[in-house]
Structure formats: structure tokens, C-alpha cells
């Protein structure tokens, strides 16, 4: 009977796993494209910074100095300046124009009469005032290609800008995108193409030649000013997600093998511990599925980012420490997850040791917030801490950290769009009260008890890519109770607030 159940569990596992892999593929490919996209954003931002610098230093320049500027700056074709009314100050139409100025004037002729779209006409005063942004890109079409322009609004009124050498920008981006080196194929079985509005390829890499009408498995939009262009990811049918470094199916298989082993170990363990009805067995199967996925995601990221770091080391780029930072975070995440799962499985054991030593609660809370700071920052969440518990008291530090960790991770996962996390502490006598709140969607009051049941995730938000086992809150409350305290959801105006009393 146990063997049959194991067999059945294994079969379900593989089936669900395959389904999951399919949907995860698209997510992973999109992630990979976004990584590339952010490299491109870096190049564009470098150029923007350079233009800002040039703008600042050329504020007082006259005609001949501006001409020299265009001649000696590779990224600039021609400079231009408008006064507060939007009228052209430089190039000066009354003076004889240089070659670059003439080319610029003829390519922009329409806009001098129609007005530039990035300046808006104030209906009341008949003068041009500028849109809310202080600077930006502008793209228009002339002759047989697109042209780029970068403008900055000047403090005293007026606008200063440059026509940008478009191909020089493209060339610089291409130089920083991946390419084969020697005989190493960087992306066998897949390829990435950068295409323009029409679908013509500007640059591509990877071993897979897409067929005539093959559609990409993922695509992202290029950053400004190239929004009309896209990055496309093509992969062979049935190809496992390849990475930008060396694709090695064996390593991925090993990773999966390891998680499979853990799965099997856990399955056996749970079956032996709980001989319940099929209902709870099914629940556990889905839990086991989720855990396997949970474990795989950080493993995938660790592998990906380590390989990216390897590549960066070879090319001398400076992103290595960022990449490794992600590896560290993912490793910690993995650790936390495993810790949670093991804690959950131990929960039935009575008399689990609880260490009570003297600690200052605020220090512990601060420490936890610091650990989570990078992750919170990258999720765009601002953390606010209001500490009023400076007196030492007897606590189990690990347990407190685990509870706080789970609560913060939940905010990260479910309430990131509130962009805020608030933690406050309070001491009354020998008691400690900690509030963890966010400004996300909030939790319906009716669900306030259900959320603490194991394996429950509120399905009001179908989060593709938000992983979770549904046991975080369960564990946290059990731990709190073990310390003689309580964890519950309290009423709040917006977002969710959890109260921990110890």
C-alpha cells in the first residue's frame, strides 16, 4: 500500500512537474530577456548622463562653440537651442549654416512650423510651455530612417538638446550584447533577436535559426527611445531553458535530481507521520509539488547568476558583485524555505526546545530588516521601523527572527504594490507587541482565521511567478504560541497588519 501510494505520488509529481515546467519556461525566458534589457538600459542611461553633462557645460556656448561640440562629440550630430517661446535660437537661420546644421534643419523642418511634440502649447497664453518631464528622448522619421533627439529643459526657460547619432548608439549597444567567443556556442538550441518595427533583425545571437514563421517563446519591449523595437527569444521545441552561459543539461538534471530526492524523502516522511484520509494526502501532494517548485526556483537563479558572474569575470565587466549578491540572496531564501518546511514537520513534536535568553527586541527587529533590505529595495518597498522596545527581555531570538522573516516575505510576495512596509514595536511590562503592516491589497476580514491554516493561499490574486507553499503563516503562529504568545490579523484601514504578542 505505501509503495503504491509512493508510486502514485511519483507519477502525479512527474505529470504536474511537466505542466509546471511548461508555464515556467515562458516566465524564465522573459526573465532572461529582461536581464538583457536591463543591460541595454545601462547603455542608454550612460548616454543620457553624458547628454546632461554636455547640456550643463554648454549653457553659455555661442554658435562656433556649439559647432565644435557637435564636431568633436561622437554621439552628437548637431546641437540645438530653443528659447522660452519655442523659437529656434541655434542653429541660427540668419548665419551661414555648417553641413551638420543644414542637415539637422532640413530633417526637422516640419517641426519648426508645427511645433515640437515635447513642448505643449498653452492655450491661454499662445506660448509654448514644456511638458512635465525635464528631459527626454524624441523619435521621428525622416528620409528612410528614424532619428533620435534628446532634449533638456533649461532652468531659466528654453530648451537645449542634441540630435543623436543613432547608429553610434546601436553600435555601442551591440558591442555589449552577448556573442560567441571562439568555438564556444553561447546559446545552443535557442537564440535571441533584436528586431525593428518591421521585424528586420538588427542583431542576433544563439545557435538556433528560427524558421520562417516561427513565433518567439517570449518577447520584451526595448527601453526608450527604442520602444518600437523588441527583443525576441526563440527556442527549439522541447528544449529545456538554456542559460546565457554554457547550457549544461546535466547540471540542471542534477539539480532536479536533488529536488526529486528531497521530494521523495519528504513524501515518505509525511506519509509515515500522518495516515489521514485521501483528502489530506492530496493536499500534501500539491504541497510537495509546490515545495519542489519552490526549491527549484532559487536553484535555477543561483545557477543562472553564477554563470552570468562567470561571464562577467571573463569580460571584465563590473556586474560580478551584483550577480553574486543575487546568488547570496537566493541561497538565503532557499535556506529559509527549507527551515520553514522542516519546522513545520517538527511542529507536532512536543517539547521542541525553546531557548530563552535576554535580548533587546528592537535590535533583533532591526537586524531582520537589514537582512531583507536588498530584497525590499529591489521590490520597490520602503521599510519604516518604529522601535519602542529597547528593554531587554527573555526571548528565543531564532523564533522571533523566523516569524518576522515569514511576515516580511509575505509582504514582499503579496503586498509589493503598496510599496511600503511598516514595523513597530511596543513593550508593556514583560510583554512585547510587534505590528507588521503593509499597504497592499489587504486581507478580507472573513479570512482572518483561515489564512493561518496550512497550505492555504488566498486565491484572490492569481500570481504567476509568486511562489509560496501556504505554510508561512501557519508556522509563524505555531511558533508564537510555542513562546506563549499569539499572532493574528488585526483590523486596519488599508493593507494588512499582523500583530505578534509575546
Amino acid at each position: 500500500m505505501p509503495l503504491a501510494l509512493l508510486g502514485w505520488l511519483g507519477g502525479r509529481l512527474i505529470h504536474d512537474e511537466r505542466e509546471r515546467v511548461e508555464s515556467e519556461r515562458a516566465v524564465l525566458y522573459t526573465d532572461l530577456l529582461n536581464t538583457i534589457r536591463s543591460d541595454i538600459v545601462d547603455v542608454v542611461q550612460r548616454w543620457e548622463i553624458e547628454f546632461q553633462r554636455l547640456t550643463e557645460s554648454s549653457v553659455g556656448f555661442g554658435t562656433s562653440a556649439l559647432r565644435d561640440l557637435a564636431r568633436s562629440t561622437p554621439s552628437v550630430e548637431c546641437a540645438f537651442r530653443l528659447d522660452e517661446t519655442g523659437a529656434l535660437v541655434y542653429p541660427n537661420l540668419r548665419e551661414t549654416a555648417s553641413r551638420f546644421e543644414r542637415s539637422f534643419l532640413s530633417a526637422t523642418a516640419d517641426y519648426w512650423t508645427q511645433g515640437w511634440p515635447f513642448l505643449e502649447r498653452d492655450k491661454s497664453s499662445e506660448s509654448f510651455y514644456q511638458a512635465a518631464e525635464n528631459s527626454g528622448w524624441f523619435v521621428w522619421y525622416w528620409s528612410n530612417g528614424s532619428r533620435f533627439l534628446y532634449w533638456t529643459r533649461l532652468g531659466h526657460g528654453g530648451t537645449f538638446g542634441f540630435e543623436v547619432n543613432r547608429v553610434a548608439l546601436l553600435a555601442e549597444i551591440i558591442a555589449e550584447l552577448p556573442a560567441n567567443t571562439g568555438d564556444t556556442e553561447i546559446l545552443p538550441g535557442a537564440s535571441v533577436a533584436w528586431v525593428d518595427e518591421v521585424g528586420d533583425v538588427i542583431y542576433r545571437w544563439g545557435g538556433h535559426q528560427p524558421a520562417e514563421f516561427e513565433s518567439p517563446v517570449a518577447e520584451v519591449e526595448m527601453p526608450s527611445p527604442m520602444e518600437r523595437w523588441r527583443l525576441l527569444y526563440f527556442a527549439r521545441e522541447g528544449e529545456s531553458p538554456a542559460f546565457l552561459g554554457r547550457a549544461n543539461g546535466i547540471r540542471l538534471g542534477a539539480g532536479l535530481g536533488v529536488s526529486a530526492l528531497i521530494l521523495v524523502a519528504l513524501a515518505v516522511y509525511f506519509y509515515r507521520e500522518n495516515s489521514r484520509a485521501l483528502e489530506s494526502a492530496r493536499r500534501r501532494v500539491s504541497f510537495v509539488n509546490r515545495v519542489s517548485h519552490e526549491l527549484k526556483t532559487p536553484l535555477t537563479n543561483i545557477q543562472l547568476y553564477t554563470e552570468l558572474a562567470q561571464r562577467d569575470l571573463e569580460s571584465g565587466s563590473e556586474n560580478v558583485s551584483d550577480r553574486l549578491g543575487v546568488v547570496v540572496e537566493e541561497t538565503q531564501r532557499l535556506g529559509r524555505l527549507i527551515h520553514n518546511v522542516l519546522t513545520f514537520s517538527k511542529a507536532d513534536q512536543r517539547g521542541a526546545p525553546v531557548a530563552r535568553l535576554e535580548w533587546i527586541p528592537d535590535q533583533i527587529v532591526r537586524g531582520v530588516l537589514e537582512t531583507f533590505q536588498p530584497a525590499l529595495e529591489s521590490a520597490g518597498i520602503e521599510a519604516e521601523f518604529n522601535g519602542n522596545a529597547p528593554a531587554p527581555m527573555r526571548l528565543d531570538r531564532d523564533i522571533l527572527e523566523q516569524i518576522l522573516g515569514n511576515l516580511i516575505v509575505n509582504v514582499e510576495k503579496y503586498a509589493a504594490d503598496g510599496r511600503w512596509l511598516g514595523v513597530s514595536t511596543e513593550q508593556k511590562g514583560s510583554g512585547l507587541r510587534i505590528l507588521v503592516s503593509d499597504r497592499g491589497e489587504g486581507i478580507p476580514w472573513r479570512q482572518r482565521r483561515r489564512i493561518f491554516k496550512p497550505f492555504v493561499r488566498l486565491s484572490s490574486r492569481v500570481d504567476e511567478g509568486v511562489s509560496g507553499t501556504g505554510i508561512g503563516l501557519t508556522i509563524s503562529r505555531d511558533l508564537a504560541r510555542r513562546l506563549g504568545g499569539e499572532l493574528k490579523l488585526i483590523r486596519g484601514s488599508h493593507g494588512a497588519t499582523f500583530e505578534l504578542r509575546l
Partner: protein
Amino acid sequence: MIVAERTLSPLAEIEWLKMKTLEINKASWIWALGMGATLVGVNGGWSEQVRLDMSLAHPTLNASEKMTTYLKVGLTGFELESDRERPPVNVAIVLDKSGSMSGEKIVQARDATIQGLRRLGSRDIASVVAYDTNIDVTLPATKLTSMDDAISKVRAIESGGRTALFAGVSRGVGELRKFLDEDRVNRVVLLSDGKANVGPSSPAELGALGGSLTEEGISVSTIGLGLDYNEDLMVQLADRSDGNHYFVESASQLGEIFDREFGDTLSVVAQEVSVTIRLSPGARPVRGLGRDVDIAGQTVRGDISQIYSGQEQYLLLEIEVDPKALGEDRQIASAEVVYANMATNTEDRLSARVSARLSELDDEIEAAVNKDVLVASVMQIAVGSNERAIELRDKGMIEEAERLLLQNRDYLYDNYGALEDESLRRYGEANGASASNLRGGDWVRQRKLDSFRNNSIIKNQGGFLQNSDQKPVDKP
């Protein structure tokens, strides 16, 4: 400057003396410099400078009527004492390995590349990027400490695929940027046998890329192999970045061409040359001939990316002189040149002036003519006509193109009669040959040959492939 020895009226004699003094001053400056250079030549020649010459086609102008003449600003590179002196080189070789390069071509291309690499030294940096549909960074930018390793990587290049030329050049430039330094000669050498068909592929776009690269201090030399490449694209890229362009018909010539290109790269003595010419009142700039210049009012600006040892590069202006508006000193123009001296790693400045004599007598004006300047002007004007003929032929107007080419031939032959310079005769002959090759398959080859030749003449590289001695060494 050529000065006529005749008896003169007292006023003219004073003029003559003034100008002679200027001339002597200038000559003595050059002479002193020459002496100085010789004296310290033993020490390694630290006082080497580029030589600046300003001359008029008509040093004696008409005293009563407006006259059109030509002003040449010539820069000649000094000789490098020894190989030790030459500036280190940072070169990226970008090779086409698309399907069309299969067979003999890719073999020759690899061999030529290896030959080029062997000419470099331990202070030099090289990289090799091969492109077909994708990019392959065969040899990332590196100091050539292990030549064997570099060579074996080049040998491994295989052909097949389409032609991502723009990406190849971009990547080559990226490799170059890793060690970009104004104390090095930074060069991309691009070989292609076909039309770019992946990525930006128009001559204008590649030209714009070339234009921006030259401002970074990078020149791209382009080698077109066979009859299928796009010569407009290759010429624009080289022209705008002030590199060289070559038309190579057979792969077996690749070795020789790479040799020439590397030879040039290894003999650069001055970079980032910026010339500003200020014309005096009475001398109106009409247009630039040959190299592109920027005319704004009475100021003319031109840039030359590099000057080679022992070779002259020049800017040529057509000007109209009104003798009544000239100043007392009869100054026509002054020039200021700033450049990076690659032997001393300094920024050097040069300046010069040129004045004219005035005469009522046609014979005097005639006799004083500076043949070198006139020959250069005639050649550049003829190039302009040849380019127009290509445009006509592109539009399908074969007869008009033929007529223009034959006219050009006659123009060159006539001037050859008067000025007796070989290059005029040869170019006249070439125009005649072009005129008879305007039809069918002949035109495909002829267009490439003409594009290459025109570009070479504009860039003062002689223009005749067969004669590798054809490097202009203009006599002072």
C-alpha cells in the same frame, strides 16, 4: 613658392622684397627646424614635427580683375627614425565569414590576417571578430604575447551564413574600445565580399557610424573582395572615418592588401589633425575640393585623422580673390594646425600664412603658376566629375555618363599637356576606360574600381592599385 625673376617697378619691387622676406622667414624657419632636427636626430629625433605648407596655384594674381585660384594646405609626415619609435597600435580585424566566403576566399582571408598579425609587436593590441549571421569574437582584444595562440584561433574560422556587417563592425569597435588610447593608433580593418543583409545596411548609416568613430579617434579601413560587395557602403564607412578603402578582385591579392594596410597603420606619425584656415578679406572661399571641409563665412575647418610617415595629406580650396579688397600685405590666408604627435605624445601646433603678388601682366601670372597645386586641383575636380558620371550611370543615363567621362578624359589630357604630370595622364586614361565599360557586367566591376580610385585620390593615396609606389611625395 615660385617667384618670377623680372625687372620690376619700384612699388612692385618693394612688394616683392616684403614677400621675399616673408618667404625667407618661412624658409629659414623650415631650414632651422630641419637643421635642428638633423642635429638632434642622433638623440632620437624628439623635435620631429609635421611639415605645414601653404601654397597658391597662382602665387601671382591679377592686379585689376577678380580671379579664381586654388589654395592648398599640405601636411607631410616626418620620417620615423626606427621601428622603436612608432606608436603602439590597437587594431581590430573584422572578417566576413558568410557563406559566400567559402573555399579559397576564407583561406586567403585567414592567411592574410595571420600575416598582418605577425607584423605586430608586443606593445600592440589586436582583436579579431568574424561575422556571418552572428558574431564570433575569435580573438578578444589582447596584447600579442602569445602569437601562436592568436594564430590558431584565426585558423579555426569557418564560413557559412548571412552577413551581419554592422554588428561585426560594432563588435570590432567594442573590442577596440577596451584599449582605446590616444597614444595608440586605433584602427578597424574590415573585410567583406558581400552585401550586408543583417542589421543596418545602408551606406548612409555606415557612413554615419564612420563619422562618429572618427570623433572617437578610430578609423575604419575597408577591403572589398570580389564583385558582390556594396562599394558605396564600404567607401562611405572608410571615407567618413578617414580610413583607407581597397578593391580586391582576387583573394590571392588579400595578402598584399593587408600588408599595405598594416604598413600604413604602423607608420602613423600624427593623429587627430585639425586645420583651421582663415581667409583674409578679399579672398572668398568657394568650395572645398577633395576632402570634406566646413566653410562658415571666412573660416574653413577640416579634419584629417592620420598622417603617415613621409606622406603628404592636403586640404584644397577653390577661392576667388578680389585684388582691390586685399590688404597691403596681400595676405590671402592663414592656417592653424593642431595635431597629436605620435612620436613625442604631445599636442603640437603649427601655423603658416600665404600672400600673393599682384601683376598686370598675363605672362608673369602664367609663369609663376605652381604646378603641384594645379595638378592637385585638376585631379580633384576630375574626381568630382567622375562621381557625377557614376550617379548618371546609376540612374540608367548611360549616354550622358559616357559623354561626361570622355569630357573628363579630355580635360585631364589637356592639362597633362600643359602641366606634364603623369598622374593626369593615367587618370585621363582611366576615365576613357570607364567610358567603354558602362554596359552590362563590365559596369559592376568598373563601378567598384572607380569608387576605389576616386576615394584614393581624394585621400591623397595615389589612386592606382597596380603601382604600389604611387604614394604622393610632393616636392616642397
